[in-house]
Every structure is written in C-alpha cells, then in structure tokens.
C-alpha cells in the first residue's frame, strides 16, 4: 500500500543530510548539490505517492497513522514516534517538499563556489527533515522535535557565514527568542497531558469537547500557551524581532525557512489544534488581534527600509499576521490558503531578490540599485508577477487568499479587524511596488564597476515555476461559487466542528460542577454567506491595492525627490525607520538586566554572600577550636575517650 511509504518522506532528506554532512567535503560541489536536491525530489515524489494512497482510502476514513517505535515511556507517560497522514498534513507536505525542491535547485546555482558548499546542503536537507517531522508527527511532542529542530537548522543557516559576527549574533538571537516561545509550547504539552493523559492528536482532539469547558480557564490557558509558541516561531508581536536579523543567512535560506515554510509553522500548529482553539473564544480574539496588529505594524516598518531583504522580511512578518488574523476569526481554510499562496509568491520574491543580489555582486541596498530590468529580464518579470500577487491584484493568487481573509475578518470578526487588515493591504501594495520601482525602474544607481548580469538557468527556472504557481495558485480556492473552493472541501474533515454538541457537553460539565452555564444560544446563529458583500469587498480591496501601487508610482518613479522631502526631519518617520526602537527597548529592559544581574549574582550573592557565610562558619569554628586547644593533649587515650563519649551522647539523642 502506498501509504506505507510515509516514513520515507522525512527519511530521504535525513539520509541526504548525513551523506553530505560527513562525506560532502570529498564528494565535491556537483555531487553534493545533486544529492541534496535529489533527496528532496524523492521526498516530493513519495509525498505524491502517499497522496494517491490517501485518495484511495475507503470512504469515511480521513486519517492514516504510522507508528515506528515507542519513543519515551516513563511512569504513566507514553509517546510514540509516529506519523499522521490526513488532509492537512498532506497539504503541508506537498508544498514543503515542492517549494523546498525548487529552492534546493536554485541553491546549487546561488551557492556556487561558496566555501563549505557541502555544509550548506547538509543543513538544508536536515531542515527539510525537521520540517517534515513537524507537519507529519502524530503527537504534540513529535511536533515539538520538529518545532525546535527547524529552529535549530535555522540557527545553523543564519550563522552559515560564521566568521561574520553579525551573522552569529543573529543566529543566537533567533535561537534564544524562539526558545522563549518554545517553552510556552512545552508547557502547553504538559498541561494537555495532565488533562487528557495522552498527547496523541487523535485522542486529544476527540476528547477535547468532552473534557474542556467551552471558554473555560483550562482551554484558554492551553491555547494561549500554544499561541505564544506560535508567535515565537512565526515571528509575531512581540517575539518577531529575530526574523529581520535572520536575513544575515544566505538568500535561499530566507526563501525556504524564513518565508515559505518554517515561519508558517505557527499557523499550521494553530490550524492543527483547531479543535482546542474552537473552544477558546477569548484566545481566538487575542490571536486575531495579534495577527492584525502584526500585519499592520510590520507593514509600516516595511515602508521605510532600504535593504531589499529586510523589506521582504517585514513583509513576511506582516503576511503571517494575515494568516493569524484568519485563524483568529475561525477561517482556518483561509489561513492555509494564504499560507500556500504566500509560499509561492514570497519564495519567488526572495529568490528573485537573491538573483538581483547575485547579479549586483552582493549589493543589498536598494539605494544602490535601479534600472536593472533590462539586464535581468526574467528576474524582473517573475518578480513583478509575484509582487502583483502579494499586492492583491486579480486574478493572481494573493488576491483570492487575501480577500478570503479580509472577508472573514469582517463577517466572523469585526470591523476593526477588517480595518486593520485592509490598511495593511494598502501599505503592502505601496511598499512592494516601492521595492520594485527602486530596484528595477528609474535611473541606475548601480556602482559603475559592477557588471549587471542575468542569473544562470538553474536559478531562473525555479523563479519561473514559482511565478507560475503564484499566478494560478488562486484556483485552489475560487470564491463566490458554492463547492468550487477546492481547499475548503479538502480540509473539511479536519476542520469539522460541532459547536452545538460541544456546548451541550460544556453545559453538562458545568452542571456537574454545580455551576450555571452562560447563555450561548447566540453563538449558534449561523450567518448566511453574503455573496454581494463579498463581491463588494473584492472590488474595494482591488481599488485599495491599485491606490497603493499608484502612490508608489508617484513617489518613486514620477517624483523620486518627494520621499526625501516629505520625511526630512519628521520624528515619526525616524521612529518607524528605526523599527519603533523595539530592539533597543528589549536590549534595555531584558538583555542588559540579565547580564548585569548575572554579574551581580555571581560577585555579590555567590562569592560574597553564600561562600562568605560558609567561610564565616569555618572561622567561628576556628575561633572555638583555638579556645579548645586544651583538649588537644596529644594523648591518644584522650581522643579515644572523646570519641566514645561523643558516640554515646549521639546514640542517646538518637534513641
């Protein structure tokens, strides 16, 4: 049976990583690149086979579990090393391996001639392994291995150029910030175990409505902890600061890890845990507002940056904010939809920026670019298509997914959330076209000694494929027509939630505890799908996107002198440009006190306080022993006497 192949999907990249890691130096660049890419390609092919196997499952079966071995057993705690194949994990596996393969191919060109080429591919394959564990695991702890595993690989790859201090610092920062979130995740896992006695998805999610009270304290705390974990990995407020710094890594890494896959792990996790989040309306509100807030916040910073990769980094933070906004209003399909389309266009944008940097021999500052669309025609065209997609111009993929998010944020959320979302959309269109215009249009500001050239085919081909996917990706979720939304139909089995029955269980549990259930009846009133409203919103957001583009055109093509004039001496602009001084704030309030506290604790408390007290005791004893010298006669019989007396005294006390 095809599903039995499941374990091979993560195994291939692991093997590739081991081969390249241990023998890569001897194999040489060609073979290393081939092995690295082939490993992911095989993984992609296996995913397709597993997908077919899943489609062949008998009617009514939506989950396939494959348990490899028992990982840990201790006391009454038991957890398997096993995989779960269902509609959600298949979507994730497909796009992770698919996009991952393209980026591997691109990397063979981009990293050409790079010193320790093999190390790069060993890490990249290892990342694929960890990411696949994350999405395929059948329990929370296995997800956690993948969760920290991808973080660890991200640390390796950010610090790939480990001779650069800034790269090392960025890597360490990413790791530590993620650790904060990860621990919250771990707490949630422990809490889940103490409530359910298991951490297997199927059992936990099945029992959730019967064990957790709707809106109760327990489920709210669990989901909040999970969400804190998500904010770390997915770079949301307030733990987003590591992602812009992570751009120190090579550009394919930014595309694969810090745009398409790893950073969306938080969204995946929330969707995976939707049976828990559905029971916690308070958490959902937090998720929605953090998401919308991050979308807007990061977009404002994105407008002011000049490093091409940093603009894209803030754009990623902002777009993931949209996905959380969707999760927060219960539109999980929209979240996954946007995740997939975002993977296409953002991977294309990052790889495109890599192609530009490659062509300009390492230049990342947009103020030193401009007018290179003729020199890099393929890069330019693919970049433009993806930019139109992210800006939300119909009929490109980003338009559909973003509109679905915005529609639900108004219908299932409220007008404030929608307002934040649509404002961020305006800013997105603006800063993305600012980027395009500054990089490709206008007059060249490129250093004349640099010979601008188009990248080799192995780099442009992935760009073309990704741009193609960014164009047609919207077909996955055609709106308006009932039943045409493929993704919605596909994810239905894992998103199915019977609110009425959950509420009944909760009422029952509350009664048992002698408490009254609040009035929940209003929650069950179903709002009709309003087609006309949706059409109106679509038109409106198209207008918004075009406005953003038009503004960017005026500022950066028509009147390139305007931006400087308007921002000159504006303190508000300076604050945004300095990223709201959040890094400085964290440094002041968290980093420095930690270091100073450590020194203080060491010198004052440990050396002077505790060790001083010990020495003090010794000194007091010394003083007494001076007085007691009379007893030290030097005669053995006296000592013997003391020992016997002491021994007897102690025994008397003891008895």
């Amino acid at each position, binding site marked *: 049976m095809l599903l039995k192949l499941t374990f091979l999907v993560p195994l291939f990249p692991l093997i590739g990583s081991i081969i390249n890691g241990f023998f890569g130096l001897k194999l040489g660049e060609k073979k290393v690149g081939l092995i690295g890419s082939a490993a992911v390609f095989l993984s992609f092919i296996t995913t397709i086979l597993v997908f077919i196997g899943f489609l062949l499952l008998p009617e009514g079966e939506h989950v396939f579990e494959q348990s490899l071995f028992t990982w840990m057993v201790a006391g009454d705690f038991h957890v398997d090393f096993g995989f779960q194949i269902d509609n959600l994990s298949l979507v994730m596996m497909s796009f992770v391996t698919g996009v991952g393969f393209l980026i591997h191919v691109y990397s063979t060109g981009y990293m050409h001639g790079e010193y320790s080429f093999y190390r790069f591919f060993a890490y990249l394959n290892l990342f694929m392994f960890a990411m696949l564990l994350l999405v395929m695991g059948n329990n929370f702890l296995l997800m956690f291995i993948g969760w920290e595993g991808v973080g660890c690989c991200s640390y390796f790859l950010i610090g790939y150029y480990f*001779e650069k201090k800034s790269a090392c610092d960025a890597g360490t920062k990413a790791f530590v910030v993620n650790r904060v979130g990860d621990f919250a995740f771990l707490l949630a896992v422990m809490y889940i175990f103490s409530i359910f006695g298991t951490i297997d998805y199927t059992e936990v999610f099945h029992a959730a409505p019967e064990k957790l009270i709707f809106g109760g304290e327990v489920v709210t705390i669990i989901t909040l902890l999970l969400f804190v974990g998500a904010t770390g990995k997915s770079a949301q407020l307030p733990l987003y600061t590591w992602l812009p710094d992570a751009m120190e890594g090579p550009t394919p890494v930014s595309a694969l890890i810090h745009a398409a896959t790893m950073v969306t792990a938080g969204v995946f996790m929330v969707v995976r845990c939707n049976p828990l989040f559905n029971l916690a309306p308070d958490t959902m509100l937090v998720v929605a507002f953090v998401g919308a807030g991050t979308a807007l916040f990061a977009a404002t910073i994105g407008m002011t940056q000049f490093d091409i990769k940093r603009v894209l980094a803030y754009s990623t933070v902002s777009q993931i904010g949209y996905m959380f906004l969707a999760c927060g209003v219960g539109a999980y399909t929209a979240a996954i939809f946007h995740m997939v389309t975002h993977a296409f266009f953002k991977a294309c944008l990052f790889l495109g920026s890599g192609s530009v940097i490659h062509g300009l021999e390492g230049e990342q500052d947009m103020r030193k670019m401009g007018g290179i669309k003729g020199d890099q025609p393929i890069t330019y065209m693919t970049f433009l298509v993806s930019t139109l997609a992210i800006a939300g111009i119909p009929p490109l993929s980003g338009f559909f997914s973003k509109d679905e998010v915005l529609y639900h944020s108004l219908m299932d959320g409220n007008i404030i959330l929608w307002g934040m979302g649509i404002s961020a959309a305006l800013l997105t269109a603006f800063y993305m076209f600012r980027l395009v215009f500054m990089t490709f249009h206008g007059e060249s500001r490129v250093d004349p000694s640099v010979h601008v050239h188009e990248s080799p085919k192995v780099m442009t081909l992935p760009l073309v494929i990704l741009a193609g996917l960014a164009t047609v990706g919207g077909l996955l979720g055609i709106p308006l027509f009932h039943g045409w939304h493929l993704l919605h139909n596909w994810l239905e089995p894992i998103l199915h939630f019977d609110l009425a029955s959950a509420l009944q269980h909760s009422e029952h549990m509350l009664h048992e505890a002698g408490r009254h259930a609040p009035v929940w009846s209003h929650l069950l009133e179903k709002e009709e799908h309003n087609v006309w409203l949706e059409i109106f919103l679509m038109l409106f957001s198209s207008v918004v996107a075009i406005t953003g583009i038009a503004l960017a055109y005026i500022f950066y093509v028509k009147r390139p002198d305007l931006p400087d004039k308007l921002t000159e001496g504006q303190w508000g602009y300076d604050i945004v440009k300095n990223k709201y001084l959040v890094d400085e704030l964290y440094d002041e309030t968290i980093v420095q006190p930690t270091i100073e506290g450590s020194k203080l604790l060491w010198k004052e408390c440990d050396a002077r306080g505790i060790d001083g007290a010990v020495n003090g005791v010794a000194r007091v004893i010394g003083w007494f022993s001076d007085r007691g010298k009379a007893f030290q006669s030097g005669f053995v019989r006296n000592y013997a006497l003391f020992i016997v007396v002491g021994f007897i005294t102690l025994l008397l006390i003891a008895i």
Partner: protein
Amino acid sequence: MLSLIVFIPLLAALGLLFVDKDNRAMARAVALGASSLSFLISIGVLVWFKEAEVGMQFTETLVWVKLLNIRYQVGVDGISVLLLVLTTFLSVIAIFFSLDRKDKLRNFLALMLALEAGTLGVFVALDTILFYVFWELMLIPTYFLIGIWGEGRRVYATTKFVLYTLVGSLLMLVAIIAITVAHYNVTHELTFDIQTLVHTRIDPASQLWMFIFFFLAFAIKVPVFPLHSWLPHTYVSCPIPALVLLTGAMSKTGAYGFIRFCLPLFPEAVESLAVAIGCAAAGGIVYGAWIAVAQKDLKALVAYSSISHLGFIVLGIFAHNGQGIEGSVLQMINHGIIASALFIIVGILEKRMGTRNLNDFRGLGNAMPVLYGMFMLITLAALGLPGLNGFVGEFLILMGVWTSAMLSDMSTIFVLMGGLAIVFASIYMLYMFQGAMQEKNEKLPDHLTDINRGEAGLLLPACVLIVFIGLYPKPFIDRVSPSVDRLLTLEKTVNLDAGHDAGHH
C-alpha cells in the same frame, strides 16, 4: 562480578605504587588495562541484567564484622546498574585523557583508579557501613588530585571541598547508626542491610532529623543550592581528567543517595520537606544558569551550568513520581555524558591555546572543523534540544514536577523556573560556542591543528550516546522503571509505632 568491577581498579591503584615511578609505559598500561577491564565487566553486567526482574541482582554477601553484623554486601538494581556503567565508562575516558600528563603520572593514575573504585563502591554497596566506607574513600584521592595537580588556589579549594563534604558525611554516619539502633529496638536484630532497613517505620520526629542528616551529606555532594559554594573553587582548580570523574560520576553519588536512602527510609519526612527541597533545587536551577551567563572562564561556566543541571535532577527526585525519578536517573546519565564531554573539550582547547578565557578564543571553527561539529552537537545536547539526550531527561523531570502530588501547589512555579533556566541555558551555551568556535580571529597560532584521532575517539562515544538516547531512550528507561516502581510502592512492614515486632519477615 560486581566485586571484580570495584576491586580491579582498587588493586591496580595499589599495584601502581610498586611500579617504578619513571616507568611511564607500565603505569599507563596498568591504569588503562584495569579501567578497561572494569568497564568491560560492567558492560557484561548490563547485558546480563534482567530488565523485568524486581530487586537487587548480582548480589554478593560476606560477613565483615561479625559482632555488629556488618556485612560486605553488594548488588545492583536498575538505577545503580546504569550509574555503574557510566562510572566505568567515564573512568576509561578520564584515564585516556590523562595519559600524556607530564609530572608524576604514576601517582596521578593510581589516585584516579582509587577514585573510580570509591565511586563504584558507593553505587553497589547494600550495607550502610560499607556504603559509608566507599563514600569516604572517594574523598581521599580527590583531596590529593586537586591539592597536588590542581591549579590556582588549589590547596584552599581542596581543603574547602574536603572539610565541607566531611561535615556532611559525619552527620550521615550518625544517622546510619541511629537507623540501625532504631531497627534493633523493635526487632532485636542488628543489621546494616539497606534492603531490610527500608521496611522499618521510624517515628516521624526521628525521621525528620535523620532525614536532614542524610540529606545534608548528599546535598553537599551533589551539590544542592545553597550548599554549592565549594563547587566553583573545586572545579576551577581541579585537573580536567579528575574533573571528568568528579562531575560525571561523583556528583551523581549524592543524587543516588537521595533515591537509595532518603526516599525509602523516611517517607514522611520527605513528604513534609519536599516542597522546601524543591524550592532549593529550583532556586539552584535558575541561580546556576543565570550566573553561568556572565562567566568567561570555560571551566567556571560549565561548573555553574552543572549546578543548574544537577538542580533539575534533585527536583525530579523529589517530585516523587514515575516520570520525575526516571527522568532524573536518565538525566544523571545524560549530564555525566554531556558535562564530561564539555570538560574534555575545554581541556583540548586549553592544551592548544594555553587559556580558558572566552575573550581569548574566537574563530577556531575554520581551523578545527571536526571539533566544530562535535562541540556543536554537545552544546545543543546541553541546552536540551529535542532529539538529543538532554531533552528527554529534562522533559520527563518537568513532566514529573508538573504532575507531582508532593510538590502540588508549587509545581507550576517550579516548572516555570525550569523554563527560565532552559532559556538561560541556550544563552550561555550558544555564546560559549560562538565565543570559542565562531567569528573571526586574526591572531590564531599558525600551528593550530584540528583534534587528532585520539581526542576525537574520546568525544565520539559521547556524541553517539547523545543522539541514541535522544531518539531512543526506551532501553534505558525500561531498566530503571521497575526499580522506581518498587521504590514508590514500598511497604513498611516493620512498624515501630506499634512498639512490638509487628511484621518481621
């Protein structure tokens, strides 16, 4: 077999004294041969150990002092068998690492073997007096190892260490005698057999002071915060091979003592003091980790991080449930492997660079790619990355604490403190790695070479175990859990309160 494991190193240590002190080759051969043989036999014990069987295995009994019924009695259960193998394993590594020592090699090796024998004896002794003898036997070689071959304020450090530990162990001796007397009062049977004594119910008031006496002895040895102040001095002064045994094996004797003595002998005292001990342990977890952040001397950094990791172990033990204790035993093994590997790396770096100060390193990565990889793996294991061994232990301990009935109200706070320490751990470990291996250094010595085969061979077993235990800890936990279950379900059949021989079987 167990006697062989213990006495081969001890006899070799004595035998070394008859070897000519300039005959370095002979001294090496004896030391290496003895420790390897001991290690091989211990592997045999591990292989033939019956996993499912409850109770002590490989027991040997001899009457030692007839008058007082003190017996030479040894045996292992699932808890001690792992620690036994850990000790013999680390001894081989430590002796290997000391072979190129210049001054007084013979004596150094003899003392190392004696230290090994003492530690092994502690793990196998089933008679309280025998336990005490081995306990003190550990102290003497340590005193000289630090006092003679140490560095810095070595005499101050070693005197402090010995006096501090001695205070604890004398208190323990008093309690050891008191327990036997208490047992004698009920049964009129004089015994120092631990397995018999654990069934005696001691009245709560006596339990309390006896427990405290035992606890102090063990807590100083581990050490538990705030009784740790000997540790930074000792670790910084201690020669690295001895440090491998000290941190890897000897610090576990304290934790082992908690499990073997404190929990079964004094259940009521444990119950009433568990929260207080938890506070000390959790305090130490954060305290050690936080101080480690500011350390520049690599030895001091690993020393303070050890205080933190050992705090986890103690906390898990006093969570007093399956996950907690099993996690703790596993974490003893893990810490033994990780901390000793880290100290060996420190030794390797010091040998090449002539310094241990982080400010003087930087940028070794390019010149030492093999060490770079191994050091990275060990660093990640030390900070508890899932998939590697450190995580399994820490997770089980935290899980045990979270679900602990005994730490009830404080368990959430303890877990949060553990979490804080985990974040600190990633800070100090990664900055240590970055400071040593990464970044650029223009002033590297030209002759700098990567680790040689021998050095790689010392680190390789640790690396393999780190990955293996991380991915498949089951065989280890499976050996521990029957013994832990027995410990948790122990029944008190000899009842003191009743005032007569209630159920003496």
